[in-house]
């Protein structure tokens, strides 16, 4: 598999505000491969979200380089937010349609795509509802539907399940894996939950904080579907924990 996104000595130091002068990221070089499920894991405040924002183009103040493979552009990327980031004054339907407004001119085509995503996530009944009327799990389904509606090739996910209860999170992880496989996505996700990383990822980059560095990248070769009680699962978890807290 060839690289889809290449990071070369990416560093970031806050240039203003309370944290001025503090170095958050130091010399991070990474290669994300096409179609892989890549996870950045590390403790809260270790700068993983900042790195994700740099990779996705949301954060522009950094040094070093982030290069997309030829044939890809910014419009091939999409983002799922930790707190869903749904616009409260738009209905579920309108929220999912958001990214299509600038991409798909025909309203009829947009409707087709939105309806397909509504069906994918079991949201048909809620098309006319507002986000506040939905549970957290349903809201993140809308967040996922919205990000997938634009047919991304790279999906960035910032702790997408951390605001959800464990049952809902479990269910959504399953759905995400199916979608990742079916649509041939490249997923780059941030989490602070080691078990979640092992369940989902092909490769796991372990972050250590202040300034954040990639301590090590683990290949996760466990066969899918992954059993959280398998011995190899625990082995890998132990290694990850040991790397985070040496």
């Amino acid at each position: 598999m060839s690289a889809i996104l290449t990071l070369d000595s990416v560093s970031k130091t806050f240039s203003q505000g309370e944290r001025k002068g503090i170095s958050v990221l130091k010399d991070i070089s990474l290669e994300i491969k096409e179609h892989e499920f890549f996870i950045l894991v590390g403790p809260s405040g270790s700068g993983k979200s900042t790195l994700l924002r740099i990779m996705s183009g949301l954060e522009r103040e950094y040094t070093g380089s982030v290069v997309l493979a030829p044939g890809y552009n910014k419009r091939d990327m999409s983002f799922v937010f930790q707190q869903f980031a749904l616009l409260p004054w738009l209905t579920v339907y309108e929220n999912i349609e958001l990214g299509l407004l600038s991409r798909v001119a025909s309203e009829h085509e947009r409707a087709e795509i939105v309806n397909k995503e509504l069906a994918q996530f079991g949201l048909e009944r809620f098309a006319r509802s507002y986000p506040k009327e939905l549970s957290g799990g349903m809201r993140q389904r809308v967040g996922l539907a919205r990000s997938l509606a634009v047919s991304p090739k790279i999906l960035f996910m910032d702790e997408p399940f951390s605001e959800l209860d464990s049952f809902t999170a479990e269910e959504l992880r399953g759905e995400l894996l199916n979608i990742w496989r079916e649509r041939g996505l490249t997923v780059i996700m941030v989490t602070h939950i080691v078990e979640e990383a092992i369940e989902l990822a092909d490769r796991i980059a372990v972050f250590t904080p202040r300034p954040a560095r990639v301590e090590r990248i683990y290949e996760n070769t466990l066969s899918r579907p992954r059993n959280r009680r398998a011995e190899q699962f625990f082995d890998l978890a132990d290694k990850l924990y040991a790397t985070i807290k040496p």
Partner: protein
Amino acid sequence: MKNKHSGHIYRSWKHVFVVIFFVSLPFLYTLLFAEYANIAAGVLAQDFSLSLLRIMVAYVFSAVIAWICAVLFYRGRAATISLPIFDVLQSFPTFAALPLAVHVWGVSDTTVVVFLVLTVVWPIFFSIISSLKLIRDDWQEAVEVFDLRGYQYFRKFLLPASLPGLITGSIIGLGEGWEALIATEMLVGTPRGLGKFFQTFADNATVTALGIFGFLLAVFVINKFVWLSMLEWSHEKMDQ
């Protein structure tokens, strides 16, 4: 409460009658008042509509100017530099410049409207700014990721996000506006309008009091049925 569907504005027949009663109240009052004070009802209505027209024109200008400025200056470096400046400008003693304005534009509607705008624009501007400050970072990021721009950015993002502030600011701004309107009309000496009306009856406490009461009645009805319902609606929409 038979009609509990969300689409219905009126909850019952009683509700409909109460609304009709309150909307017609200012008109009934004007008739009775004109009869009592021995002025032609038409003249009174004209004075009131002329003043209302002035404040409405001034309001439309103020709302548009305030909205555009708020959108331009609510965040980033622009906000750091401009907000303190606006804060000082807001305290500018408008009436100090009134004689000069009369000198330039004469005793005219332009003078009155310009002075009204100078009063009404500030509360609207600052309320919209405070509304826009509530925009969460991740909403802004979502808008960027999903590439919302131009008209869609306005319609799906900026306008809804600024609406509660626009409405709150309009309520405060118009409150101050009515006061400034009557003062300006009196000071400028416009030949018609509410300012003129109250000046005519300067020596009649009863007519002045009844006039003020009628005026408050009209403002109450406008607020209750236009602004407060809009405010409630916009808060409902913004609720997360």
